[in-house]
């Protein structure tokens, strides 16, 4: 269905209806938006249910926050941190003292200048929540404002990944807030939404679950470089960006086809063929870094506390089955991923990934289970049904485990319950769990920085609590690596050791589309939807 005419039947009906409206309402209602204002209507991946990027680390919060709060650095499409609020930085020859200078003209939305003390408070709050921030905090000697524009971070040992920590896209991002807001307890939500980014948050129009509005901040001074992902000039060509929350994909699809919205971040793969047929709609990969599906096992309790049983599942698991269940038959949208790292990125490695390659071996898996003395203990699969990705993976898993002779206790539930239950360290039969599914954003899996799923610190590790000090030691080495070759060598080891330990089982790499009206230009795929440089004809 095409809508190329400028005056639709509905517009004509509106014209007739306006007469009635004038009579009934006693005159014209005041327009909410100034005449001639340019508006972009965007449907995000999820509801913006809170708006504190340090307290709540959901991707949708980060994506909205990049409009309102600025960062010291931002990664480009090569995942290299580039200066954003910072004008220059200097590191002492011993690598222990970092001195940063802010660029001129930075202002908060309340008109106050951005000062070094604001940065210090913001980094203090961020470093209490972020894994890299926590590492920095552990070796921090001093984090102080030298003058209004300069701040200094003194460490007890060198930290070569400093700029990446300050510019990474993974949550929580080191956003800069005014000192009075940044002093909020990092485990409590902020109540003021003042940033120094290119858009102001229209708090009065915020209807969580329905609408979030961002208005252009006239005093924002963008960098001169071209925008690329989270780096470069944050030029916004709209007076207003409306985030319209649409939980129903069919409704979002129809609204896009009807021209009621401009841009839809995550079209359901089932609806993509319909959108592709509409010449007024363009589609492209939303984020080339994609996602890695995950089969997360509980290392603490039987049966998966035995590495042989974990390996039995690993050698039988077919990534193709999982990927086709998630994205359908579009082979452009997935590829095998015998790795814990993001395909196509500098540190990607398949070393040790052999168990996930080639023909799947059900018989060998059965044999391994027998060797391990598996005696039919049920595997409690806690599977969220309200997330299409976890639901699809769960169905494949139930079938796979039965095929290799395991007993399946399938708990079909919602994501809220999975979130609670996976934190339980009880035995599976007593409120605990055996496995659950999730997926990791490719942008988090480019390195160990955001890739918490590969960590094996036992009780301190992510849910499932894999315990392998040797892998942890190897990951620590990566943080000290100075060259790319060094980093690659270390991560090859990490991948090999993780596959042997079966820290978790990647179920494949998959991509998703984004869709927009053809009168919109400048949309670039990336780890976050980037509004910078986007135009509407």
């Amino acid at each position, binding site marked *: 269905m095409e809508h190329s005419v400028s005056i639709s*039947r509905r517009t004509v009906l509106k014209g007739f209806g306006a007469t*009635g409206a004038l009579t009934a309402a006693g005159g014209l*209602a005041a327009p909410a938006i100034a005449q001639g204002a340019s508006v972009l209507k965007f449907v995000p991946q999820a509801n913006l249910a809170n708006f504190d990027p340090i307290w709540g680390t959901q991707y949708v919060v980060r994506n909205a926050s990049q409009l309102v709060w600025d960062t010291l650095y931002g990664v480009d499409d090569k995942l290299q941190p580039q200066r954003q609020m910072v004008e220059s930085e200097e590191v002492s020859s011993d690598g222990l003292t970092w001195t940063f200078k802010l660029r001129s003209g930075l202002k908060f939305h309340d008109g106050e200048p951005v000062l070094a003390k604001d940065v210090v408070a913001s980094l203090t709050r961020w470093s209490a929540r972020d894994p890299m921030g926590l590492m920095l905090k552990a070796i921090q000697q001093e984090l102080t404002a030298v003058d209004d524009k300069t701040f200094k971070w003194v460490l007890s040992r060198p930290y070569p990944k400093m700029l990446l920590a300050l510019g990474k896209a993974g949550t929580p991002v080191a956003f800069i807030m005014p000192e009075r807001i940044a002093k909020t307890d990092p485990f409590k939500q902020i109540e003021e939404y003042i940033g120094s980014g290119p858009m102001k948050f229209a708090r009065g129009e915020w209807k*969580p679950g329905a609408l979030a509005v961002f208005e252009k901040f006239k005093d924002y001074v963008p960098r001169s470089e071209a925008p690329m992902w989270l780096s470069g000039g944050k030029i916004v060509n709209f007076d207003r960006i409306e985030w319209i929350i*649409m*939980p129903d994909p069919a409704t979002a699809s*129809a609204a896009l086809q009807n021209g009621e919205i401009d841009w839809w971040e995550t079209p359901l793969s089932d609806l993509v063929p319909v959108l592709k047929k509409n010449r007024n709609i363009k589609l492209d990969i939303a984020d080339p870094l994609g996602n890695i599906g995950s089969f997360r096992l509980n290392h603490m309790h039987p049966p998966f506390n035995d590495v042989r049983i974990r390996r039995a599942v690993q050698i039988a698991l077919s990534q193709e089955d999982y990927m086709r269940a998630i994205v359908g038959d579009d082979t452009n949208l997935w590829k095998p991923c015998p790795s814990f790292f993001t395909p196509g990125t500098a540190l990607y490695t398949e070393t040790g990934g052999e168990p996930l390659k080639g023909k799947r071996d059900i018989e060998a898996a059965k044999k391994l289970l027998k060797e391990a003395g598996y005696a039919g203990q049920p595997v409690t699969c806690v599977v969220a049904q309200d997330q299409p990705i976890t639901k699809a993976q769960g169905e494949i898993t139930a079938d796979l485990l039965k095929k290799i002779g395991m007993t399946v206790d399938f708990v079909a539930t919602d994501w*809220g319950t999975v*979130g609670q239950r996976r934190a339980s360290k009880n035995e599976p039969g007593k409120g605990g769990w055996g496995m659950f599914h999730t997926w990791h954003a490719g942008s*988090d899996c480019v390195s160990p920085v955001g890739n918490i799923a590969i960590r094996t610190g036992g009780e301190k590790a992510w849910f499932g609590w894999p315990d392998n000090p040797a892998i942890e030691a190897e990951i620590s080495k990566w943080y000290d690596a100075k060259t790319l070759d060094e980093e690659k060598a270390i991560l090859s080891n990490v991948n090999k050791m993780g596959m042997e330990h079966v820290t978790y089982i990647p179920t494949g790499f998959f991509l998703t589309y984004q869709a927009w009206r053809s009168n919109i230009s400048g949309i670039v795929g990336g780890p976050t939807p980037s509004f910078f440089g986007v135009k509407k004809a």
Partner: protein
Amino acid sequence: MLGYVLKRTLATIPVMAFVALFVFSLLYIAPGDPAAVIAGDQASPEDVEKIRKSLGLDRPFVARFAEWSLQVLRGDLGRSIFTGLPVTELIAQRIEPTVSLMIVTLILSILVAIPIGVVAAWRAGGWLDRGFMGFAVLGFSVPVFVVGYLLAYVFALELDWLPVQGYTPISKGLWPWLENLILPAIALGFVYIALIARITRATMLEVLSQDYIRTARAKGLGETAVLFMHALKNASVPIITVIGIGVALLIGGAVVTESVFAIPGLGRLTIDAIVRRDYPLIQGIVLMFSFVYVLVNLAVDLIYTLVDPRIRY
């Protein structure tokens, strides 16, 4: 009458207290953890625990219930765990779309269903009756979301007469307001029309067999006057009861309809709150809906006295 209204109004207090305790208890024992949802998928178990503590979710049931009850008595429904905004503000933001949807649906349903029911009873056993009752069966059988998607496809996507989604406040004009409500109201009203039409038919059939109807016809009164002035008035008590009960049906249906048509109303707010385990918000919404339902029942009881002079309180 005034005494009766006062008595009924006071009776809402224990009802509301019971609802409050019931909802609070239910949410307390229900699985799910808002702290885990807030922290996000990447958060460590320690971070989730710290957030849980900061929200006071680690405190015992009695302490939490006592604190919340005192808040409610002061007219404060608390703050949403997720947004940090007052529950009253969130509900206030969403009331207009839902009330608008319910009013339009109610008016549409009554205007369509009652004539259908009356005519079906009048022509009982005929093709008109069978046709209308077939429509009613369809109304009961087809889910709201199916009707919604079909309407949106035909009237919004194909014909481009109406918008697919959204809501425009009435302050921006009657047509912009109505334009967004027509399709959702038809979708939501489908089952409601079926219900009212069937009850109207059944009660009309009974009334039409009464002696006074025969008398009215015998004295030469026109059929329209017999049906709508005599018969319908005497059949109205069960119809009003069903319309009242149907308000609960509408509240339930609004949840689905608002999702299908992306209307930012209370139905969607309820779903979002449940999915995220936003306890104060769920409690606030359920309390409000219970209160509305109690009021609707009171209104229905009072309307009885208007249509049937024999009923006195």
